[in-house]
């Protein structure tokens, strides 16, 4: 490891602009003649639009235009799509209802777009939006998946009878039933996974610019995957052909899944720019973000886990109802299926698993991937169930987990996944030691003296990252391949640009990707630039989500670097009159091994471009492109232990300590990896203690600001104790597994297990608010 290479705690290159206020986010962009947009949105959860009268709005000061869905449709703009086909167990395809970018006849959730107003100022656009008179005929609404699937529930889309989108299954039902029938003990539990709003701090924004002379569109947008946005807007929404559409995702202020999808606003602002002849900018306010950003989670599950007389898990049967909201968002169908049920084996050797998932439409905002996406739901379900079983069986929860661990790899689970490597015992032991598990009873007694209930809870998680082998996801219904691309450009003076299809919205790629180049070529970090987020600059790429930038994105860079290195060595060998096989790259020089003969990196690069003296037949220049398609998922895993204190008088929970022992495979920059864990843990603790989207029965969103939706703040969480225990991933050249989501996946069950341990009542649902915990304590 060098000072700046793989494994070094390098301070981030990108920080300078952010700490001086020079970051450039979408809402910071300004172009000549730019005007502002505001959307007219449905105030009803479910209604027929009977008329739209924009005449008053059109006459208001500063108004340039008011446009509706009928005009959008007339111009040939298509409906939004879901890009992952799921088939029900009877073989029928999922039932996808139409999602118009702006509703023309029916609105299906509060916040559904109905019209757009473009005006000179932000304020004028909002004033005029309020003056657009939309008449509605209200229809009955349904909010939860449970209610939506009941007979006689309000019908949301004509395409999906009874609001059922698909009825899907995985695993062997008869084997699971047999295990349960023959079990020495069966633990049964109902698991609720609360609905969340991702809440990146930067609200979504877009700036659409139409260039009439070139018949060309530019879309600045808050996206995690600008190339996918271009592909989808071009191929499915008919905004413009790809060569006439440039998508730029500049600095993006957090994503967490919410910025993967292509929302109506990007499409509408591009189209409105052509219609009105002015560049159109829209920026969500926080209430719009709560109303329109895709939500996450929202599962209800029934679980049966079978044990033999030796406390080994013999079978697992799960029935899940998942709420997908009013429309099927881009990857919504994959989250409660292949991103969820394929992880139901957890860290445990379970011979028989069956899971049935029914998804439902409801009159709520669409639900899609949020940090972890399916894997937090699987982990919460399993780890709450195992903990409950340990209490029922009278076994130490750590021991029950230990005796059921998978110990040999590769391990084929009954639910598709083939775990390549791991050491679950190592992370369990590390976490237990870090928290001083043995000393808990003494600490509990100490807390009791102060009138507090102390609890300890653990969670052993596994997740699947590195998403994903294209052929594998294609066979499971994905509409896209999930490879990644990279181009490494060595300039004539030896400086380097890496163009990556990954996108950084906080992950620090400008630093970690440069560390990889430093490790390989020895050039200083300052002479390496990472370019991303602009479809005009960067070759097609798939973007960043599912903790894939390291395992997939950097693997593509490795492949391109291999090609660069290969050519550079040929050039150096020629210049040094040596054998290519004897050339080594060290400290920015190409050397003949075992001699003092060398050529500096920059001189070799210059030779590549002057082309005065290259090997016979070699093309000038030094620039290589690679596409990397992963061969398997990667499987980060670990153990988290929380220690909490509950005040029985108020029901308030304080997280006293939280230890995390993770196996992310090899690590490029430990400082950045730890930061990812800290952030993930806080989102998971937020889910467990504070956060929850609430709709009332009529479908009004009650949690639509930070005064109502409780975000974790600095005084809600402790400082974390994080450690790494590495088993390198055998599936990619860097041995990386991924670290972006683990914290959010593993932490909720640890917190709820700790609270229920403290109060001696297992019936606490997330978020475990003081009111709920107090009620559980006093339930008698």
């Amino acid at each position, binding site marked *: 490891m060098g000072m700046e290479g793989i494994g070094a705690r390098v*301070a*981030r290159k*990108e*920080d*300078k*602009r*952010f*700490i*001086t*206020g*020079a*970051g*450039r*986010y979408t*809402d*910071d962009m*300004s172009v000549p003649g730019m005007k502002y947009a505001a959307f007219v949105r449905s105030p009803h959860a479910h209604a027929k639009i009977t008329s739209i009268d924009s005449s008053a709005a059109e006459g208001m000061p500063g108004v340039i235009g008011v446009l509706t869905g009928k005009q959008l449709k007339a111009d040939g703009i298509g409906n939004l799509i879901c890009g992952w086909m799921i088939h029900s167990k009877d073989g029928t395809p999922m039932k996808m209802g139409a999602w118009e970018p702006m509703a023309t006849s029916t609105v299906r959730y509060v916040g559904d777009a109905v019209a757009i107003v473009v005006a000179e*100022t*932000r*304020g004028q656009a909002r004033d005029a939006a309020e003056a657009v008179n939309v008449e509605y005929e209200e229809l009955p609404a349904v909010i939860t998946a449970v209610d939506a699937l009941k007979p006689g529930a309000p019908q949301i889309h004509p395409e999906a009878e009874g609001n059922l989108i698909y009825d899907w299954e995985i695993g062997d039902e008869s084997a699971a039933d047999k295990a349960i029938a023959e079990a020495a003990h069966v633990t049964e539990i109902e698991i609720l996974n609360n609905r969340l709003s991702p*809440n*990146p*701090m*930067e*609200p979504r924004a877009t700036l659409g610019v139409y260039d009439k002379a070139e018949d060309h569109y530019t879309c600045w947008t808050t996206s995690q995957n600008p190339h996918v946005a271009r592909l989808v807007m071009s191929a499915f929404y008919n905004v413009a052909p790809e060569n006439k559409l440039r998508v730029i995702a500049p*600095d*993006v*202020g*957090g994503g*967490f899944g919410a910025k993967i999808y292509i929302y109506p606003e990007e499409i509408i602002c591009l189209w409105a720019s052509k219609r009105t002849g002015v560049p159109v900018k829209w*920026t969500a*306010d*926080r*209430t719009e973000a709560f109303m329109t950003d895709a939500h996450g989670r929202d599962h209800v599950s029934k679980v049966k886990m079978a044990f033999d007389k030796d406390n080994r898990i013999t079978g697992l049967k799960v029935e899940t109802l998942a709420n997908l909201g009013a429309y099927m968002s881009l990857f919504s169908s994959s989250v409660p299926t292949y991103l969820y049920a394929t992880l139901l084996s957890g860290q445990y050797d379970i011979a028989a698993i069956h899971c049935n998932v029914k998804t439902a439409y409801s009159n709520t905002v669409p639900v899609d991937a949020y940090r972890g996406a399916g894997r937090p739901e699987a982990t919460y379900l399993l780890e709450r169930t195992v903990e409950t079983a340990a209490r029922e069986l009278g076994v130490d929860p750590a021991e029950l987990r230990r005796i059921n661990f998978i110990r040999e790899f590769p391990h084929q689970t009954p639910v598709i996944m083939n775990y390549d490597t791991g050491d679950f015992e190592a992370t369990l032991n590390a976490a237990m030691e870090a928290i001083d598990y043995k000393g808990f009873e003494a600490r509990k007694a100490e807390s009791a003296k102060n009138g507090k209930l102390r609890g300890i809870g653990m969670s052993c998680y596994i997740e699947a990252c590195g998403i994903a082998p294209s052929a594998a996801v294609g066979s499971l219904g994905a509409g896209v391949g999930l490879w990644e691309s990279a181009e490494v450009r060595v300039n004539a003076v030896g400086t380097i640009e890496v163009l990556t299809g990954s996108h950084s*919205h*906080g*992950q*620090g790629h400008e630093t970690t990707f440069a560390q990889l180049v430093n490790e390989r070529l020895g050039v200083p970090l300052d002479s390496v630039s990472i370019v991303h987020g602009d479809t005009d600059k960067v070759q097609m790429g798939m973007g960043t989500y599912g903790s894939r930038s390291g395992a997939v994105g950097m693997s593509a860079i490795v492949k391109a670097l291999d090609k660069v290195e290969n050519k550079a060595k040929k050039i150096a060998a020629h210049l040094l009159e040596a054998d290519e096989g004897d050339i080594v790259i060290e400290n920015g020089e190409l050397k003949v091994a075992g001699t003092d003969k060398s050529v500096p990196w920059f001189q070799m690069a210059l030779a590549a471009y002057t082309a005065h003296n290259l090997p016979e037949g070699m093309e000038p220049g030094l620039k290589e492109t690679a596409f990397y398609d992963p061969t398997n998922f990667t499987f980060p895993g670990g153990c988290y232990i929380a220690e909490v204190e509950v005040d029985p008088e108020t029901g308030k929970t304080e997280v006293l300590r939280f230890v995390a022992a993770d196996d992310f495979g090899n690590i490029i920059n430990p*400082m*950045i990896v*730890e*930061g990812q864990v*800290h*952030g*993930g*843990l*806080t*989102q998971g603790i937020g889910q467990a203690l504070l956060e929850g989207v609430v709709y009332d029965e009529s479908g009004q969103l009650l949690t639509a*600001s*930070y*005064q109502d939706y409780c*975000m*974790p*703040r*600095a*005084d809600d*969480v402790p*400082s*974390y104790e994080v450690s790494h225990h590495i088993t390198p991933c055998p599936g990619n050249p860097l041995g990386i597994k991924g670290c972006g989501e683990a*914290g959010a996946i593993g932490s909720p069950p640890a917190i709820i297990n700790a609270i229920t341990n403290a109060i001696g009542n297992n019936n606490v649902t997330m978020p475990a608010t003081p009111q709920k915990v107090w009620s559980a304590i006093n339930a008698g």
Partner: protein
Amino acid sequence: MSEVTMTVNGRKVSGQCEDRTLLVHFLRDNLGLTGTHVGCDTSQCGACVVHVDGKAVKSCTMLAAQASGSDVVTIEGLAAEGDLTPVQAAFKEHHGLQCGFCTPGMIMAATDMINRYGAGNLDEKTVRAELEGNICRCTGYHNIVKAILAASDDMAKGAAAA
């Protein structure tokens, strides 16, 4: 329309804006100082914190007209050109930021916090309580708290050495 005049980052500026224009929009739209961000519109998240007459203020909570005649410092004007303040430097050194969106507000709030308590007089509990008005979704606060404590201690050492 209001005619607004104020000193921003040491420079006297004036401009016309709608009466309802918030200070944050005046800074961003009229002056092009886009380092101050809008994260929530309800004075909860603190992405918009600037200093008005030496005090940390959420600039989405103040009308531009109310700030007329005031001395305003934004993230762009916190350090001398080409330099970083100890708080800015500590955020970088301790990885106190990820996406960077809440960062300007965090740094302005932290600077005000250290000014109020005096360098070297902060502990973790105080910092966490004082950050109640600033939301970060990326870092889990761990490294922000670390950065603020380090900056506070560094500034105390600097003051002692001077």
